[in-house]
């Protein structure tokens, strides 16, 4: 997705005439389909998205813009001194600038029986990274009816069981999606609570309860250690009988090519503020594979911001990347989680915590505030005011002392009070409650005051007021 955005940004600059350079762009992708919206895979699994609506740009678009898109093209080696890359099929592609947007690769947890003797995965095991993975999983649960994503295929999944290994964002989305599909699903997480990278333990526990309420069983502080033909054994001694195992236990930046090419790699490919490798000015990295300022991200918005900055860098604009604000949202029906920034780190760094926990209702809401600004937050089970909280976070609004607390309170419906006589109830004709009370009937009020004859919005109020006077029910008012 980062690469697609970069290409779009470059194309836009070329067509706007803001770069006079001649561009020969080659896109190499090892999947066999054009780039698609990877973050919606769990929605496809859940059945809220058709797989066809994931494609970002089709092959024709690349062709129309003179871009050489090569699908199923796996890179064997980068040769920085020759400024070319060699593909597994032996061809080479020369470059002036090389952009690595290789993303991340899933890590395989150390579970015995996961990989068979011949090196392939156990037939019940599914990764969940690509559209192929997603379609494979859908086929396995018998839910591959893409024509009508909602409501189909539920019956065929009855009685089937799945275990999701990993209680991070992706794991929970997949677990919930399988649950929606009617599969008895359980989640296994090695840490002592769900979403442990994003949430504190109290919030994680509330989340686990929310998930269990939706029918998904949660095992935290438990590691899967052994897979047999129809069961997964945990290190807590529990054995989960299952038909399917889905691995979502995180990934790591895909850096093997960069490492072999001699570029500086720590967790990711190390880049500077111009998203340029610190060891080779002709090489750039964006997205999940890049490490900027000691951080790697795993989210799309920062990858896009990097793509946008890099497009500027490549066209000689004086731009710099100075990090991104991340809002992580769980995409799953009836499971409400939003994490702003890194709350745990901000708390450790001395941020003030404003918190509202209601385990009875299944909500836990925390804002971390520093110098009057929201620097991080975690909202579980109640996303009331999410659209305002994220605005304040993104814009770094300087808030008043009462605001963070109020943001966590649920809005109350307004109460109705007896209208004073001077209250204007019909804006159209400028009629007060008193003037209507002086009327004998609805028709009388209409005639004398012209209330209800404009927009008509006050009709129910007028009925109410006339009824008050005549001791009728509003329905009885003619």
């Amino acid at each position: 997705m980062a690469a697609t955005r970069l290409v779009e940004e470059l194309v836009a600059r070329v067509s706007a005439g803001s770069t006079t350079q001649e561009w020969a762009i080659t896109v190499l992708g090892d999947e066999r389909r054009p780039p698609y919206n990877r973050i919606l895979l769990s929605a496809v699994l859940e059945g809220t998205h058709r797989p066809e609506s994931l494609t970002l740009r089709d092959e024709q678009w690349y062709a129309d813009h003179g871009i050489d898109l090569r699908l199923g093209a796996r890179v064997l080696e980068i040769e920085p001194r020759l400024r070319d890359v060699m593909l597994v099929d032996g061809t080479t592609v020369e470059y002036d600038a090389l952009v690595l947007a290789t993303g991340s690769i899933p890590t395989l947890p150390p579970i015995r029986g996961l990989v068979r003797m011949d090196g392939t995965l156990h037939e019940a095991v599914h990764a969940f990274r690509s559209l192929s993975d997603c379609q494979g999983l859908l086929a396995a649960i018998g839910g591959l009816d893409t024509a009508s994503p909602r409501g189909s295929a539920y019956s065929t999944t009855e009685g089937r069981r799945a275990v999701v290994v990993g209680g991070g964002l992706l794991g929970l989305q997949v677990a919930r999606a399988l649950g929606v599909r009617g599969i008895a699903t359980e989640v296994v997480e090695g840490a002592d609570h769900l979403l442990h990278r994003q949430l504190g333990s109290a919030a994680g526990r509330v989340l686990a309860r929310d998930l269990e309420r939706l029918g998904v069983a949660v095992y935290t502080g438990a590691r899967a250690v052994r897979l047999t033909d129809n069961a997964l054994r945990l290190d807590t001694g529990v054995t989960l009988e299952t038909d399917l195992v889905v691995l979502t236990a995180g990934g790591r930046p895909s850096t093997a090519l960069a490492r072999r090419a001699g570029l500086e790699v720590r967790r990711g490919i190390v880049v500077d503020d111009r998203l340029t490798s610190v060891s080779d000015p002709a090489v750039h990295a964006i997205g999940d594979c890049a490490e900027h300022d000691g951080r790697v991200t795993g989210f799309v918005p920062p990858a896009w911001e990097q793509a946008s900055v890099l497009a500027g860098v490549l066209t000689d604009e004086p731009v710099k990347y100075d990090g991104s604000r991340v809002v992580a949202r769980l995409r799953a029906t009836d499971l409400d989680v939003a994490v702003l920034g890194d709350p745990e780190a901000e708390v450790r760094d001395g941020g003030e915590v404003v918190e509202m926990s209601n385990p009875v209702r299944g909500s836990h809401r925390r804002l971390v505030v520093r110098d009057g600004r929201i620097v991080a937050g975690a909202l579980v089970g109640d996303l009331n005011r999410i659209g305002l909280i994220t605005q304040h976070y993104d814009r770094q609004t300087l808030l008043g002392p009462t605001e963070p607390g109020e943001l966590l309170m649920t809005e109350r419906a307004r109460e109705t009070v007896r209208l004073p006589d001077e209250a204007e109830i019909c804006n159209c004709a400028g009629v007060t409650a008193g003037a209507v009370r002086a009327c004998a009937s609805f028709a009388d009020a209409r005639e004398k005051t012209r209330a209800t004859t404009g927009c008509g919005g006050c009709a129910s109020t007028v009925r109410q007021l006339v009824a008050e006077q005549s001791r009728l029910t509003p329905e009885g008012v003619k």
Partner: protein
Amino acid sequence: MTRTHCPYCSLQCGMTLVSTSSTTGAGSTTGAGSTTGVGSTTGAGSTTTRRAAGLEVQPWAEFPVNEGGLCRKGWTATELRGHRERLTTPMVRDRATGEIRAAGWDEALDLVAGRIKELRTASGPDSIAVFGGGGLTNEKAYQLGKLARVALGTSQIDYNGRWCMASAASAGNQAFGIDRGLPFPLADVEQADVVVLVGSNLAETMPPAARHFDRLRGRGGKLVVIDPRLTTTAQRADLFLQPVPGTDLALALGALHLVDAAGAVDEEYVATRTHGWDDVRRSVASWWPERVERVTGVATSELRALVDLLTSSRKVVILTARGAEQHSQGTATVLGWINVALALGLPGTPYAGYGCLTGQGNGQGGREHGQKADQLPGYRMIDDPAAREHVARVWGVAPETLPGRGRSAYELLESLGDGGGPRALLVFGSNIVVSAPNAHRITRRLESLDLLVVCDLVMSETAALADVVLPVTQWAEETGTLTNLEGRVVLRQKAAEPPKGVRSDLEVIAGLAERLVSTPSTGSGTDGPTFSTDPEEVFAELGRASAGGKADYSAISYDRIREEQGVFWGSPRMFTESFATPDGRARFVVAEHTGPAESTDEAFPVHLTTGRVLAQYQSGAQTRRIRSLPDDGPFVELHPMLADRIGVRDGEPVVVRTRRGELTAPAKVVTTIRPDTVFVPFHWVGANRLTNDALDPSSRMPEFKVCAASLGLATSSPSGSDYSTTDRAAGLTA
């Protein structure tokens, strides 16, 4: 008794005007049978008292748009007649002393024509500019375009409608090949299952329209309102979405993303009636709900609820208004919503489609007959040789004498005087000082003109700057047609004589034209241009000029309008068979969200948006002078959280600042607005000193509806009452 229409908004509510002989008004003899023009101002001349009004508003129950209903502005519309501030003689300013004095008509018109001739000789015809209004009748709008192109010879004409629905017009032309506010009668919404209002507060801005939406709900239909404020309209909605100002487009993209994701696209309609879907489909693939939530501040659950409604029925109507359109991305925003409508297969199917709720009284007709910088009558483009040929023949001039395309409204005003553009400006039916964005700057431009001529009823804020002010007739004193938001041409009929000394705009135009048109040129079989002052004659000429154009009025006559309670130009229900594009198919146009021109920052941390209140209309030149309409002056609407942040209580003065100006007004603390947004009504001087003049690249619409602002306590405010009187005085006389 005279059947006519309300002087204000685009509904053009039908009403009956009855002459009254007594001063009491109440219980008047409605069956008096007085006819047009009878029983009018007996004390003719001079400024008289309210007694002279002698007209009372009565319902006209049969007119289908409002069925006898009116809002407060309609009921009180006659009060402006005989108002003590009504101008009844031309006024001329002495530039040396600044004194303004009464003058005779001939003196005033000679002076204006003389100055124009001097300027024209010295600097060419484009040194003269004309600024019209969306409240002018079709006849006036038409005649004004002709005055500019034929008598003045200038390309420099545009009008305030550019600030009204120009974005919807531009989008409509791109998508459907034609621009008409509603391609179906308003009452059709009653038969729909779902209506989505994007940026309209019609319960306040056009209250009688709300009855149709109430009936929709009475039938079990659903109303969706999208607005940064929980307005009185939104309070009636089944679903209310409250986006950050300037993000309606992102919401549309997100809605279309989910429509496609759910497989709810009408593939057959898309394949047979449209072009361009594939590109639009790809462009919305990256607008998943969580991304939309972050941009718009609308929770994913609410977006999903909207899409569930959109996909629940075939009878879905999507309507936009100024809230969605008055943005530097206004055209793209409308296109974004049109794309949703097209993907769902709505336009041209019964009780479904897309429409724009036009704002000004003649917002629709005003843009069809040649007061736009780029257009000739009948919605013809001025740079189309065939169009020029046709119109020139009707006008009795040679096609090559017609000037080309001029500047758009804001660009025209911005270029005046010191701006290097025209040195003289003639204003008809507009109060620029109050209604232009970045109004400080525009006011300075007006002050730098060699000649400013304003036609108005009262000494508006703009008239107060003029060198020559010409007093013109008002609504009940004149006849002419207007085209309402449905494309229905209605007849405003004269019900009373104007005060002595007042002339109609048509007479003013003719008076100037006869002084400016050089004797008919070179024969060549033409009679040379004429400028009739009879509205019906002008309308017939307009019909000929528009014949064959997109908005063709040639089959419409005053008699037909009277008989049929208004006549639609074109079909009442459009697009049933084909669209007005060359191949008959609608166009999907890719619309990318880039956000408002000005973002909030450390110095200006809140969004400012502007709009109307029920009791006022536009710049308030008329409604602020009607005693029965409450005029409490401007206010600053803000949420309690924001009020607490700056420490202001309800009713206390608060200062709103932007990069362009500031305004002090009492705080109105309400829980119905987004806590990151403030709202200021635009009927008074001040609001538009704050607004941003960034323009939409396609429609040239300024960004009235969002800019970055800061808030503070008003420092030197002795007491609330003192403050508000001085402020209001300033507002009324600036």
